[in-house]
């Protein structure tokens, strides 16, 4: 499909504008509608303590997952790769569920920190298992991730089955991407890890493009495929771990957002990475705003809403591609 030269710029500008509008809508919407341009002290307090941190976390999480998906689909050369297929979310879920179900708070370790540790430990285990004498092979790494993920999910289900604790519902909500409990406390550290992962990925964007063409051609272009894959995998793991620890498990965003972005602006990582951040953040922010508004005072998890909104659009795009 041919596109005019200015088309990606137009898409980026439209996306940024849509993102700004959705941020305003997200801040204003909820069980009680706020007018951001006319507020009293109580409204201001609610805005600063609840709506803004929630919007910030949704933007950061969605952005991190979108960029992680773009990285993983490139380094595995697999359109189905996403931050969760590698078992990272299963590791985070298991660790966080232990915290939620058994009230573990060792040395003040809270659920987000447990989730982060679980995610990073799983990522490290997957890298070790995905390594052979030829280096970090994409197929082996992917299979290691899937295997570790299934094992950890099975342990998680076992733990949840035998648990009768009140934390069970909280654990299920956490695994559906429920942002109702977030506050500013998680934002600085989450932001730091996400920015670090994103900066690494941007610096290595050329390596990511080259890996997409296969290891032999990446080598021919002067890259060391194992080294590039390892560094980019670390970047994606950092961003995923930070996202999961901030607001729980949100599937779909990391899988679909990079596809939608590529569909509109091509596959150059220099463009796809930043736009996946903007699109992922915007989608999750929008989903969270809808989730806390449509059935108020009941809150629906943002992860579920994001999948419900995004899936039909994704299927529509697939239909267009076939045509």
């Amino acid at each position, binding site marked *: 499909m041919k596109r005019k030269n200015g088309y990606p710029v137009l898409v980026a500008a439209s996306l940024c504008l849509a993102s700004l509008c959705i941020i305003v809508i997200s801040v204003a919407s909820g069980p009680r509608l706020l007018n951001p341009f006319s507020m009293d002290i109580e409204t201001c307090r609610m805005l600063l303590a609840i709506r803004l941190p929630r919007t910030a976390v949704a933007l950061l999480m969605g952005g991190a997952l979108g960029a992680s998906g773009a990285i993983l689909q490139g380094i595995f050369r697999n359109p189905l790769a996403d931050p969760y297929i590698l078992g990272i979310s299963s590791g985070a879920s298991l660790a966080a569920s232990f915290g939620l179900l058994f009230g573990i708070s060792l040395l003040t370790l809270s659920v987000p920190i447990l989730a982060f540790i679980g995610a990073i430990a799983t990522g490290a285990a997957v890298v070790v298992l995905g390594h052979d004498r030829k280096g970090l092979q994409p197929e082996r790494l992917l299979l290691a991730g899937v295997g570790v993920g299934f094992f950890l999910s099975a342990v998680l289900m076992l733990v949840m089955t035998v648990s009768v604790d009140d934390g069970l519902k909280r654990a299920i909500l956490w695994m559906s991407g429920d942002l109702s409990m977030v506050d500013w406390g998680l934002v600085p550290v989450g932001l730091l890890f996400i920015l670090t992962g994103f900066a690494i990925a941007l610096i290595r964007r050329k390596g990511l493009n080259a890996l997409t063409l296969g290891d032999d051609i990446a080598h021919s272009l002067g*890259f060391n495929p194992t080294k590039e894959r390892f560094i980019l995998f670390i970047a994606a793991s950092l961003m995923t771990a930070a996202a999961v620890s901030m607001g729980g498990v949100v599937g779909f965003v990391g899988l679909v957002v990079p596809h939608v972005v590529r569909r509109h602006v091509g596959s150059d990582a220099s463009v796809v990475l930043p736009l996946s951040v903007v699109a992922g953040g915007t989608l999750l922010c929008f989903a969270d705003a809808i989730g806390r508004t449509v059935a108020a005072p009941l809150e629906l998890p943002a992860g579920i809403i994001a999948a419900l909104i995004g899936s039909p659009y994704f299927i529509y795009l697939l239909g267009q591609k076939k045509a």
Partner: protein
Amino acid sequence: MNILEFADVSFSYSQKRFVAQMSFSVAEGELVGLMGPNGAGKSTILKLAAGLLSPQKGNVLVGKQNIGSYSGKERAKLVAYLPQILDLQAPFRVGELVRMGEYPQEGSQALCVEEALHLVGLYGKKDTHLAELSGGERRRAYIAMTLVQGARVLLLDEPMASLDIRYQFDLYKLLKDIVREKGVSVLMSSHDIGMGAMLDRLILVKGGMVIAQGDPGTVLTDKTVQESYDLNESVGAYMETNRTICRAFAFAGV
């Protein structure tokens, strides 16, 4: 002057030796073919030349220096390797792919993207998806990337495989142009012994060893082909038919 040299190179994947004490060279601005039966070691030779594999014995020299001694970027400026099967699913547009050739150059590329696209005849397809190109066009797009990369040696693993006679014609013409106009050296593997006449020089291999090398007309005799491919029948008639095609190519300016 030789740009690529195999000096007594041996390589084995496990117990089986794939390349045994092999010596040959490729000069600057030369189109050299690598022919032999399946399992003769053609792809292994190309991967050794690209630095993808390291020999257990002997040296692979590019520009008089061991290929393993170069940094990734330095190596990429000298040698480019294209595998036989190019990814059909690569999600890039032609322009995006060719621009990747600039990666090792840092602003001092040998050829700009537009020039390279013009040279391979894909100037009008810069914004077309690779998946929408024919097999021949896709291979030309990858060759354009290596031209931007500025590699002095182009290593092509069976570039003519699965191409019809028209695309083979186009690709030979392109490679000859690159060799003549840019002084690039090409080492390519092929199964098409009849097309040997299109090459400047030919290396015939079997069981990881060089059977014969030199002018294609001298190397490709009924006897060497029978010996190399373990044939009992004469291939003279087959080769004569292909020589006629080559003459037709030559008549058309290839």
